[in-house]
C-alpha cells in the first residue's frame, strides 16, 4: 500500500524513493548504489560527444559545453502525491437520492413541514475525494496552564510527558468538500477494504465519477501531515493529560516515530436540491446512505411562533407574580 523503500533507522518512519534524508528526523539514507573509490584522476566525459563535462551553475547540473547535454545526478525527488488506494462505492444513485429524502424528513421542528415533500433533487454527482490516513507513535512533552493548584492567579503552570498512539487519523486533501462535511462523513468508511482501482459494489457507472487528485508535492504533504499529528497531539494532551477543569496555553513538542501514511480516495455523493426556488447542497457518504450532511432551510414561521409563545408564557408568569404581590 505504501511506496516505502525501507524504514528510517532512527525514527522508523518510511523512506520513499528519492528521499536523501528522513523527512521527519533528518537522518541520511544510504546511497542507492555505492561504488568503491580508488586512487584515480577522473575527467568526466560527455556520453554524447566525448568532451569533458563540468558543472554548470546556470543549468544547475553537470553539462557538456559542446553538445549541451546535461548529466543527471541523484537528487531529492519531490513528486506530486498520487492516490495509493481506492475505497469502493457501496451507495448507488437511487440509494443516495432516497437517503436525501429521509435526511430532509428528519431535520427537526424548525424546518419547513413540507421540506421532504416539496424539495426537488437537481443534481447528484459521485465523487472520489482524497485524503491521507496515517498511524503514528508520538513521544510528547508538554506544558500548559490550568486552574489546578492555582493560588492568587486563576492559573498554575503544569508540565508532563505522554506516549500517544494515533491510528487511522484522517487529513483531508479535498478541494471539493469542506472540512465540516468531511468531519461528518469520515466515520462511515471501512478502511480495511482498499482497492487498487476505482471500484463500485453497487450499480454505478465509474465513468461518471469525478476523481479528485492531491494537487500537492510530497514535501508539502508531509508538512501538512506532521502539523496534523502535532495538533491532534495538542488536542489530546489538553483533553486528557493536563489536570484541572480549565486549560490554556498548551504547548507540545512531538517526537514522531513510525509515521505511516496512506493516500486514499473516498467515495461520496454530492447533491443539490431545490426548495422554493433556492438551491441547497448536501453530501452523502459513498459507503453509507444514512450518513449525510448539508444545508437545509429554516422555517421562520415556526421559529417566530415558538418565540411568540415563549414570550406570552413569560409575560403571563410575570403578570401572575405581580398580581400575587
Amino acid at each position, binding site marked *: 500500500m505504501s511506496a516505502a523503500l525501507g524504514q528510517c533507522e532512527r525514527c522508523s518512519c518510511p523512506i520513499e524513493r528519492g528521499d536523501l*534524508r528522513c523527512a521527519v528526523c533528518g537522518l541520511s539514507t544510504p546511497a542507492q548504489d555505492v561504488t568503491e573509490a580508488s586512487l584515480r584522476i577522473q*575527467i568526466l566525459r560527455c556520453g554524447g560527444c566525448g568532451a569533458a*563535462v*563540468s*558543472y554548470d551553475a546556470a543549468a544547475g547540473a553537470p553539462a557538456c559545453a559542446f553538445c549541451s547535454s546535461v548529466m543527471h545526478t541523484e537528487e*531529492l525527488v519531490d513528486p506530486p502525491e498520487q492516490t495509493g488506494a481506492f475505497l469502493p462505492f457501496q451507495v448507488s444513485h437511487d440509494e443516495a437520492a432516497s437517503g436525501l429524502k429521509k435526511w430532509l424528513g428528519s431535520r427537526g421542528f424548525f424546518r419547513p413541514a413540507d421540506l421532504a415533500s416539496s424539495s426537488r433533487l437537481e443534481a447528484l454527482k459521485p465523487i472520489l475525494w482524497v485524503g491521507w490516513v496515517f498511524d503514528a507513535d508520538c513521544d510528547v*512533552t508538554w506544558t500548559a496552564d490550568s486552574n489546578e493548584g492555582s493560588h492568587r492567579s486563576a492559573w498554575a503552570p503544569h*508540565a508532563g510527558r505522554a506516549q500517544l498512539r494515533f491510528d487511522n487519523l484522517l487529513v483531508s486533501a479535498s478541494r471539493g468538500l469542506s472540512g465540516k462535511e468531511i468531519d461528518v462523513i469520515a466515520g462511515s468508511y471501512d478502511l480495511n477494504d482498499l482497492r487498487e482501482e476505482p471500484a463500485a459494489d453497487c450499480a454505478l457507472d465509474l465513468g461518471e465519477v469525478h476523481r479528485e487528485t492531491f494537487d500537492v508535492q510530497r514535501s508539502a504533504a508531509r508538512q501538512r501531515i506532521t502539523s496534523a499529528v502535532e495538533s491532534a497531539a495538542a488536542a489530546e494532551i489538553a483533553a486528557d493529560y493536563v489536570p484541572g477543569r480549565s486549560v490554556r496555553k498548551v*504547548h507540545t*513538542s512531538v517526537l514522531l516515530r513510525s509515521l505511516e501514511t496512506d493516500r486514499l480516495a473516498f467515495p461520496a455523493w454530492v447533491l443539490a436540491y431545490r426548495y422554493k426556488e433556492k438551491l441547497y447542497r448536501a453530501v452523502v457518504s459513498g459507503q453509507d446512505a444514512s450518513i449525510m450532511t448539508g444545508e437545509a432551510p429554516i422555517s421562520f414561521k415556526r421559529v417566530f411562533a415558538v418565540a411568540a409563545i415563549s414570550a406570552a408564557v413569560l409575560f403571563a408568569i410575570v403578570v401572575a407574580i405581580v398580581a400575587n404581590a
Partner: protein
Amino acid sequence: MASISTRAPDANTLEIQCGDCGATLTLPKTQFAAVCPYCASPSVVDRPVTDGGARREAPDFILGFHVPTEEAERRVANWLSRGRLFAPSAIKAAKVTSTRGIYLPAWIFSAVARSRFRASIGENYTTTETYTTTDSKGKTQVRTRTVTKTEWRKLAGEHACYVNDLVVTASSGLGNAELETIEPFDLGALRRYDPAVVSGWAAEEATLDRGAGDAAARDEGMQAVKAKISRFLPGDSSRLESFETDFSEENTDLVLLPIWVFAARYMNGGEEHTLRVLVNGQTGEVQGVLPRSWIKIAAFSIGVIALVAVVVLVIVAAAGGFA
C-alpha cells in the same frame, strides 16, 4: 574517463598529470577537484577513504552552484559600493583581485535532543487597590483602581525534539562564524555526492574531523533547543532558569557547500589592505568581514554627544532657563 598516475612531492601537496594535455598540476592535498590551466580540462581526484595518505572522509551530499560567476561578481561590486556607517570609505573603491568558486566541506548534524528544564512562570492576576489623590480644589480623595500583578511559580519539566539541519564548517580555512554570515543554505536542494557536480570547480576536503564538527554542532544545537524551550513555557511571562540537554541517536553527514570567495584590495591611509568577501553560491547572499574606521566611529560619537547636549539645552531653555 582518464586514469593517470599521481605522486605526492611533499606532505601538503599533490601532483597530478592532466589526462588531456599531460601537463603537471600541483594542488593542495586538501583540494580534490581542479581545472588544468593549460587546456581547461576539469579533473576530479578520487582517493580511497581508508588507506594511508587517503582522504579523510568521502562527501555524502553536495549542493550545486546556482549563482554563476557574472552574477556573483555583480553582487560583490554592489556590496562593496554600498555606503557604511563605521567602515572606511576607501572600501567603496576596492578592486577585486581574485574570484574563486569553491565547494566548502561542512558537517550536517542531526540528533534527538532530550532536555530537562527549570523555569519561573509568571501568571497574571488582577486586584483592586485603594489610593489617595488630591483633586483640583486641594481636597484629599480615596479612590480604587484595578491593577495587574504577576504571581511567579516554579515549573520543572521535560522537552524532547529532533534537531536537524545544523550546518557547521569542516574546513580549517573558513570558520563557523564566517560561514554563518552567508547561511542559510536550502538543504532541500541537496543531492547525493557525485564527482560530476564538482567537475570544473575547486573542491576542498574536510580538514576538521567529525568529532570537532559534532562538538560545534552540539553547541549550535544547544542554542536551538534553548530557544525552543523558551517558546515552550506556559504562563503570561516566563524565565528559563536552567536546562540540561542530552543528544542521542546523533548523525553527521559531510556536505559540500557552494561558495564564491572574492579577494579585494583597497588603499587606506597610504597602505594596502585586503578584504575577503563570501557569496553563498546557492542563494547569492553576500557577506564580508569589514574593518572598522576609528575616525568614523569617533566622529559619530562626538556628533551624538553634541546632539544630546543641544537637545538638553533647548529643553532647559524652554523650561525657563537655569534660574
